[in-house]
């Protein structure tokens, strides 16, 4: 019996002070101010939103921005599209990431490190370069189309960017490395003797996988799904560079309102609603997560 490791009882104020200062100053405060801006009465071209009024000026508080947004069909469409895109991208990412992670997990150590480096390498490069490279790949005269036409799958080159497929491919490409890292870590944590034990008891490879590896990796799948969803909901670069004006997500909308229309209250309100959507999706996510957790402990 090992007794609990006792933690120190003291107050580590000095240790946490820098982090707390950073967070308060550059995260909490701006976010609070953002909420304030969204409630600002100034409409239209309100510049940086606060204008000369200051934080507490009475008479400049209003829910007008929210009322407009929530009443608009336009906004509702953008919202729906963002959520659907987010879920879609997360789903595709998981579908590709899981088999890939299984493959990497089973590799011998040297090859495994190489493979993981290969997965992470795109993240080291500038995101713009990657999109650029993707664009070249997906263009009408690019290799992908060449392959498709050559295999006879399509009769003529398919436009794969500046449209929805382009956005899906792009966002999946950006998020995949994170999902793979999480899943490989989760798979590595499973006791490696369990699968051979199941096989020794007479289980076929597929059935053994289904009953041991898969349920035991469920927490990893849940985490990977969560992370993918969160990042996919914030999709900005994909839609902007690889999508058409129709592929409008909340993130793009926020940028447009704030920096192009210079309508800060509206932009801020959109941003706040976006965070609310994120939080809502996170809470809703708990449902399948709980199912996954129960499935794992099922006899």
């Amino acid at each position, binding site marked *: 019996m090992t007794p609990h490791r006792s933690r120190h009882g003291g107050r580590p104020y000095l240790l946490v002070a820098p982090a707390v200062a950073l967070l308060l100053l550059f995260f909490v405060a*701006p976010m609070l101010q953002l909420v304030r801006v969204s409630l600002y009465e100034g409409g239209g071209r309100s510049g940086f939103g*606060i204008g000369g009024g200051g934080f507490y000026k009475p008479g400049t508080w209003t829910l007008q921005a929210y009322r407009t947004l929530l009443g608009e069909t336009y906004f509702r469409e953008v919202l729906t599209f963002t959520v659907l895109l987010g879920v879609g991208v997360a789903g595709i990412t998981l579908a590709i990431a899981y088999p890939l992670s299984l493959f990497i997990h089973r590799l011998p150590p040297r090859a495994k490190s190489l*493979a993981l480096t290969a997965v992470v390498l*795109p993240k080291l490069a500038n995101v713009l370069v990657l*999109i650029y490279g993707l664009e070249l790949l997906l263009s009408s005269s690019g290799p992908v189309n060449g392959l498709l036409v050559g295999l006879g799958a399509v009769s003529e080159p398919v436009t794969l960017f500046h449209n929805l497929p382009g956005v899906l491919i792009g966002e999946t490409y950006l998020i995949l490395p994170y999902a793979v890292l999480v899943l490989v870590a989760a798979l590595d944590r499973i006791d490696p003797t369990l699968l051979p034990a199941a096989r020794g008891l007479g289980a076929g490879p597929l059935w053994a996988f289904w009953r041991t590896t898969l349920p035991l990796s469920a927490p990893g799948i849940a985490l990977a799904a969560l992370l993918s969803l969160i990042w996919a909901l914030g999709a900005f670069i994909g839609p902007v560079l690889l999508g058409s004006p129709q592929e409008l997500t909340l993130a793009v909308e926020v940028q447009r309102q704030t*920096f192009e229309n210079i309508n800060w209250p509206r932009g801020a309100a959109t*941003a706040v609603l976006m965070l609310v959507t994120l939080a809502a999706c996170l809470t809703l996510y708990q449902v399948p997560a709980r199912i996954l957790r129960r499935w794992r402990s099922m006899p």
Partner: protein
Amino acid sequence: MRRSLSLSRLFENVFGLGTLLLLLWPLAYAVWISFTPSELLEPPRGELSLRWYRRFFELPQWTAGLWNSLKVAGLSVVGSLVGGTGLAVAATRYHFRGRRLLSGVVLLPLFVPAVVLGMGLLPWLRFLGLWGSLWSLAAGHGLWSLPVVFLVVRSALEEVDPSLEEAARGLGASPFLTFRRVTLPLILPAVLSGAVMGIVLSLNEFMIALFLATPDTETLPKVIWPNLRYTLTPLVAAASCVTMLLTLLGLALTASLLRVERFVDRLVSRGKQ
């Protein structure tokens, strides 16, 4: 049954290898193009040329962008190292109210979309008077590297055998001495990798740079941006390859630093005999 095993394994291997190659392809393609001698966006046919690399270093705006990127990365990493390590030590070795809350809050910036972060920081930084300086960018980047450093250092601290610190204390070392002589050397690889990750994140970070940069304080990704949207030249490819090269150099440097440290250690301990 054995046949289905090898078939499914084969399929899995093909899938795995294929996907990995696909992941690397855009990268490789862009690198390949950066060596093209032509004016257009086409892969080099025949000869390779360093033309675009030369061009990159000739353009003051681009080299300034690179220099800014490095400065911002340095600033943000120093801040997140101090903050993240301190917080990780506090979270793993101390009981205090709000420990769980703080550990959660520090991760929040990762989940907030960059657009929203950029939006929020812009007027606030203006208000603080930091607008138009590299500090504003460093602050934005620090928001991301802080949680990363925290997570990495925290997991390293949790893996340190607690009896090592107990042994040190029992031998008469104060808590501070214990940390300096025992804990810190053991978590140093993690701290370093957290720093490296922070630098990599910062060098390549684009969205916050887009929102917060002024013409004087453009980081390299921000410089590339208009080029990407409006005029595509291989200059972009060359610029990004320079960034990637720098990043890889940094990683290699860290790895070799760790090896050098071990080498020096062995020299010193042999000298003591």
